């Protein structure tokens, strides 16, 4: 089963961390992803630029519009993702809970639909 793990962190909290600690967090995350990859469990992963770089796009009745920033104001922001292929939901939860960012933020684990968009 494939799952996407959406990593939410409060950017304020992240920015408040001392530089060495942030470096440690990033190194640990990279090492973790390397291991998942070696075990054939990682499909893709990436951290994201801060939320102020985001643009939200809509298309209504053929008219496209763009707005600056994220869709909604929330306390935690999407900071990165992991796409994994594992045995089941509990395996996905285990992998997400050991991801370093889970200690400071939260990770949403969502199963990916296997066959197209419709159920």
């Amino acid at each position, binding site marked *: *089963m494939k799952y996407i793990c959406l990593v939410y962190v409060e950017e304020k909290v992240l920015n408040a961390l001392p530089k060495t600690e942030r470096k440690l967090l990033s190194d640990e995350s990279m090492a973790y992803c390397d291991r998942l990859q070696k*075990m054939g469990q990682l499909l893709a992963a990436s951290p994201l630029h801060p939320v102020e770089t985001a643009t939200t796009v809509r298309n209504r009745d053929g008219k496209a519009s763009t707005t600056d920033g994220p869709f909604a104001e929330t306390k935690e922001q999407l900071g990165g993702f992991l796409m994994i292929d594992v045995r089941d939901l509990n395996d996905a939860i285990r992998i997400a809970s050991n991801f370093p960012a889970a200690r400071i933020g939260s990770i949403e684990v969502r199963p990916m639909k296997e066959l197209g968009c419709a159920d």
Partner: protein
Amino acid sequence: MSDVVEQTLARVEETYRSESRHVLATLIRLLHDFDLAEEALHEAFAAAVEQWPRDGIPANPRTWLVSAGRFKAIDVIRRRARYDASLGELAKSMEIASAETPEEHHESVEDDRLRLIFTCCHPALPPEAQVPMTLREVCNLTTEEIARAFLTKPGTIAQRIVRAKAKIRDARIPYEVPPPSGLQARLDNVLRVVYLVFNEGYSASSGTLLTRADLSGEAIRLGRLLLELLPEPEVLGLLALMLLQESRRAARTSPDGDLILLEQQDRSLWNRAQITEGITLVERALSSRRFGPYTIQAAIAAVHAEALDAGKTDWAQIVGLYDVLMRADPSPVVELNRAVAVGMRDGPLAGLILIENILQRGDLDNYHLAHSARAELCRRVGKMEDAKVSYKRALALAQQEPERRFLERRLAELSHMMS
């Protein structure tokens, strides 16, 4: 890819299917942590994929995987210790422990599977967590498969498993086969979990299908595993009971999914191989003279199985067995079943008097089968109005579609007869 490499990789996969639960069970004992053991298991198999094509398949793959898993777990802890100083000591103590632990031998690995079953069925875990834990960790079902079988959301099942594992860790639930003094009580709980899985597959508590064969099959598999590991009389009895009930599966429902009662079933559809095996197991359990409720229920099922048609059923023997069951494990439901058997042996009125007594006590007032049994006996003694009232009450309480259709048919027949 060369043929040899391809063959080796196929062997790794085969080994995963046959050995992963054994390896996991042993790693949990060595590492004292379900999640760490699962991570180590994956790492060990990843190492096998890398090393076996190069170095050849080890003589004892299971031992190789356990040992690789253990070293990988130490790596994991050491890596985490780099970021979390408090884990440094743990990594060190694990290294010492692993250096001191002697080589595994076959017997202790089998014990580990039994340990895993007893831990998943530990009474300190909430009952609704014991079943999914057992199905996932022992039977190797995925969270999604368990959720499908129980018609619930994967997230719900996942959370129960996560919480159960946290409780095992935090409350230090021991990973052990209970000592002889406490074995019987704990085994009772394991058997209850297995039978719960079976029953969910045999008479699903809700939904449109009467049975879910896959769950019953898992329960029987579990029963066989348990018997192999712990040949106690009640383990024999439970496996016999499940086989004898399962033997009627094909005859229990019509092609449209309607319920067919025991006395109307086409007995040529009964699975003879399962009946023969079930009867042999019951006899073994009975001869131990240490049997309990499962064996007695299996013996009752065996009496039914031995009757070539419903009219030849030895009801006197069945009533006698219910008397034994009432002494071993008394309950209103057993009393109800005994009353029905008495009704078959001595005539419907005798059974009806007993059922009226049970219902008057109020014990089974919300149990649809008590009302449908009363209705059936009322019908047989010609009390049509009373029969109708009871069928209606049963219908109001029944949850399952096939059972509801059956009761509706009976009500319609009754109205037809009365008009």
